[in-house]
């Protein structure tokens, strides 16, 4: 009995440490400028960071812990805590995950590879470019995790065929895998449906700054950044891996044989693609009035009613813990804002940095970009946006800047710091193939982050203030 308990204590030591941190901060004497509730929520934030990094308990259970502590520490009444958990963004995340299941179920992978090879044949660099752009364009709408799941076999087949044809041993074939991983990761901020983290920012803008950003407005702000980054990524991959010409000659014939065995594009396939296109159309045109979440649910309803998706698929393949986790993190962000904790940190940051409005704006953008990239690298992009969102929006208020611009800086910065295999869903899934060494993520991630830093700062200084003033 004792041995079992001691084992659990050792195995879950980070949980106990995180809880102790939260409790100590909750019990500390109050600072004059920080409310007791604000202090307690900061304790919960620190606890969450530790739990997200070390995962001593399943992350959905962390959400329960957040809800329980928000009530126990007296931050809010139970009804208010429950209310703070649900928002349009959470419904949107749930709907997007369900739609992704319908898409992954289709046999799109072989068709994509067939399309690429028919276009590129034996030209390796053109194949890499096609992978980067196709993964990117799909990920910007469907979410990077679905694209990585669909395109992993595509890139693996290319790797195998290339390895068989190229005599010398090298790491060059990895370029196909990295093209998919980073193509999808870079483009996932293109539209709100590209990833759950985008929905968090939309929620913060609406509930903290009172600005409702539509699907189309997000695209106008973010898609040019994606379109600027994808060619940069391609040149970076080609420069690092220097893929030799040729070696894919028999890939096309292999795939034709494979495709020959496969059935034609079925009615279900057509219906699924049509529903996805319709949903994107509705998001672009009606997200202002209908909201993002209900439109995603319309897509899911259509999938179920038309029979391309059944409840068993949804309940089995959707990672239900993700919306629960994001719901709790959004709730935490909202309480950071309403208890004054975000204000307190933003004030401190402003004081420390000593930037004045106007001349210091560029320096402030540089600092916030760096901060978002650093935190994104440590806790991954979703939690980084959730934790830093309230602080960045308050910072914008204090320095008289546009909260939309600062929010975009945060989303882009946190999403472009992919130094490790676990930094983004696409990188993790591709790493799961066992063919990419960890060091390659550092090699590509660091170079991409350095370039992205300059590009983000340029966008934040020149482009985003220009477009957001017209929203």
């Amino acid at each position, binding site marked *: 009995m*004792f041995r079992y308990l001691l084992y659990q204590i050792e195995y879950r030591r980070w949980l106990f440490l995180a809880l102790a941190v939260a409790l100590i901060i909750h019990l500390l004497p109050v600072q004059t400028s920080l409310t007791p509730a604000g202090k307690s929520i900061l304790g919960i934030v620190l606890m969450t960071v530790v739990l997200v990094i070390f995962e001593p308990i399943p992350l959905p259970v962390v959400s329960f812990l957040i809800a329980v502590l928000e009530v126990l520490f007296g931050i809010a009444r139970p009804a208010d805590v429950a209310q703070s958990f649900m928002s349009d963004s959470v419904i949107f995340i749930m709907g997007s995950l369900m739609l992704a299941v319908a898409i992954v179920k289709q046999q799109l992978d072989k068709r994509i590879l067939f399309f690429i090879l028919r276009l590129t044949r034996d030209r390796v660099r053109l194949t890499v470019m096609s992978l980067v752009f196709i993964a990117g364009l799909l990920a910007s709408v469907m979410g990077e995790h679905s694209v990585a799941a669909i395109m992993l076999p595509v890139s693996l087949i290319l790797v195998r065929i290339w390895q068989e044809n190229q005599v010398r041993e090298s790491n060059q074939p990895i370029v196909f895998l990295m093209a998919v991983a980073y193509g999808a990761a870079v483009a996932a901020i293109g539209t709100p449906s590209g990833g759950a983290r985008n929905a968090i920012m939309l929620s913060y803008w609406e509930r903290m700054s009172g600005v409702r950003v539509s699907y189309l407005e997000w695209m106008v702000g973010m898609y040019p950044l994606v379109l600027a980054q994808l060619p940069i990524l391609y040149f970076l991959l080609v420069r690092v891996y220097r893929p030799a010409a040729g070696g894919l000659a028999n890939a096309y014939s292999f795939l034709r044989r494979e495709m020959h065995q496969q059935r034609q594009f079925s009615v279900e396939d057509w219906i699924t693609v049509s529903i996805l296109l319709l949903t994107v159309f509705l998001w672009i045109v009606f997200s202002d009035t209908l909201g993002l979440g209900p439109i995603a649910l319309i897509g899911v309803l259509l999938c179920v009613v038309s029979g391309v998706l059944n409840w068993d698929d949804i309940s089995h393949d959707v990672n239900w813990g993700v919306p629960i986790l994001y719901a709790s993190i959004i709730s935490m962000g909202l309480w950071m804002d309403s208890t004054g904790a975000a204000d307190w940190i933003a004030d401190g940051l402003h004081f420390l940095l000593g930037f004045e409005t106007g001349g210091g704006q560029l320096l402030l953008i540089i600092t916030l970009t760096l901060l978002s990239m650093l935190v994104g690298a440590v806790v991954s992009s979703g939690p980084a946006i959730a934790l830093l969102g309230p602080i960045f929006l308050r910072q914008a208020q204090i320095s008289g800047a546009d909260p939309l611009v600062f929010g975009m800086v945060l989303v882009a910065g946190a999403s472009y710091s992919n130094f490790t295999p676990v930094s983004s869903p696409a990188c993790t899934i591709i790493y799961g193939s066992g063919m990419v060494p960890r060091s390659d993520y550092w090699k590509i991630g660091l170079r991409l982050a350095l370039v992205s830093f300059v590009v983000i700062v340029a966008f934040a200084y020149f482009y985003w203030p220009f477009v957001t003033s017209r929203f």
Partner: protein
Amino acid sequence: MHFLICIGGEQQSRGTLRFGLMISSALRADVTILYVRRPVSFYFRKEAQMARQKLEGWPLETVDSAMMKAIERMLVEEKYLRMVEGRVDVRQMPHAEKGGLYEYHLCGQYGENVRIREREGDVVDSIRRETIEVAYDLVIVGAPGDGGRLVRHIIQYIEPSVLIVKNPREVPYRFLLCLNNSESARKAQEFALRSALLLKTSVDVLCIHSYPWEENVAMTLGEDAARLFKRFRVPHTIHIRRGPVVRTILKEIQPDHLLVMGPSERSSIYQFLFGSVPVEIGRKGNNPVLVVK
């Protein structure tokens, strides 16, 4: 007998696997080889599963089967598997079990069951779950250079006997049996006797006493052990030493020794706070350590 050999990858675990197979084949034990994979983060677990399902639609070797094939290759190289017409005798092809576990069932050279299993998660937790589900007689684990956390957890929290493989060598090993006046040491002595008979090796018995008034007890233990080993005609030597236990064992141990000892009989809390002799030896020593439970 059923042994569990735990490995963490292809290259670094070759020595552990070879050593474990040497012991298993001598004792004609069924073997399960457990490979523990790093867990995928919770965020992407479902998506990673979906990617795996997608891969099944292609003529590709998946990562899971690739690792299993690598272990199978190692077993063939070690001449541990039964071959039928130049091919491995497979009992059951790789298949998924409950709880994200993969299993591949082969036939050993002497008809033993050889299973290759793959789990995902924390190493100690995976080994612990494995030993709860299946009754193993011995768990064989390689000791990495991580400061001994793994060694401590394995010795302290795993139920069956444990063999910590450190610096495995291509030499015939002798047993160094550490005895004291405890029930666990008596079990270790029985195990050493049986193993020495099967492996046809000698046993050096080490009885350590920390205080002068314990010398008689140590002498009696040594005499009893000598009588036992003599009866079964196992070559042996008896050494009675005085001093701190850990330091004395580390001083007496030779490069070709496999250390055999019982677990600490102190309470779990004491061991948690202050450690134990087997853990200290497992961490500080350079030889394989067998803790008989």
